[in-house]
């Protein structure tokens, strides 16, 4: 059976993706993500091995122990408000990026913007440059 350390769990659904018997269920409902580890007797530790937070442990099978469940509030994008990640995942990114990528005046605020909005910002930036060039040509 799997024991979960909720403080270490990132809510990333790695375990749910790698479980060969689909015993780890991840459900995203609007603002929340919940992960549910069903009772498991398999001799397999793929989920342990592939947990980025090292939050899982194997414990002896016990009917009386309730099935572990963890839920997270999904973080809303600062621009479009769509829910795109869990707070521990974003914290994890912040801690893995080297200091020189965190030094600019905006720090790590960009992590709070969802990937789609990041692409839109990039497209708008490039377009501004081009439109400027075009207007120069006409003038």
């Amino acid at each position: 059976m799997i024991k979960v350390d909720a403080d270490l769990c990132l809510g990333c659904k790695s375990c749910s993706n790698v479980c060969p018997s689909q015993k780890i269920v991840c459900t995203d409902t609007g603002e929340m993500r919940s992960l549910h580890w069903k009772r498991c007797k398999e001799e397999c530790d793929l989920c342990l091995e592939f947990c980025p937070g090292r939050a899982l442990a194997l414990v002896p099978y016990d009917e009386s122990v309730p099935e572990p469940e963890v839920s997270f509030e999904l973080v809303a994008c600062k621009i479009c408000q769509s829910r795109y990640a869990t707070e521990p995942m974003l914290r994890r990114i912040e801690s893995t990026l080297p200091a020189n990528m965190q030094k600019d005046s905006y720090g790590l605020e960009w992590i709070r913007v969802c990937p789609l909005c990041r692409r839109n910002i990039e497209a708008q930036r490039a377009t501004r440059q081009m439109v400027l060039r075009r207007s120069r040509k006409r003038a």
Partner: protein
Amino acid sequence: MPVYIDISRCIGCRSCEVACQRVHAGSGHINVHFVGDLASFPIFCHQCEEAGCVMACFSGALRKDEEKRTVFDAEKCTGCDLCRLACPFGVIWTDKIAHKCDLCQGREQPVCVTTCPANALSTNFQQASRRARSRAACIAASGGGR
């Protein structure tokens, strides 16, 4: 081998998107974004030298090869989503595994480049550099200023 883009040439036909999906079993890695009616701009992996996705990947599925390309090993990917969140350009997406530009490994040229009917995409550094120089020269000749 990065892919260079000349945005003033992009006609927004989205051929690159289709071609990319065709060679990657329906899961493409390039997105054409439209900025009002003004412009279209394909956004894809920049092959960052200091790649956030590689730093965030805990399973070793994303790594840098000898030629500084970011290579992806689907076998090792767990679909944890961390690379998607660590990409400043937002070009990685995940379902059960991550989907990221591999510069069409095994092909001579990335298929987006060979498909683009407007020659907006290229892997030709000389050409990209020549175009950039001529743009700058144009502006300088017309009086400069920003």
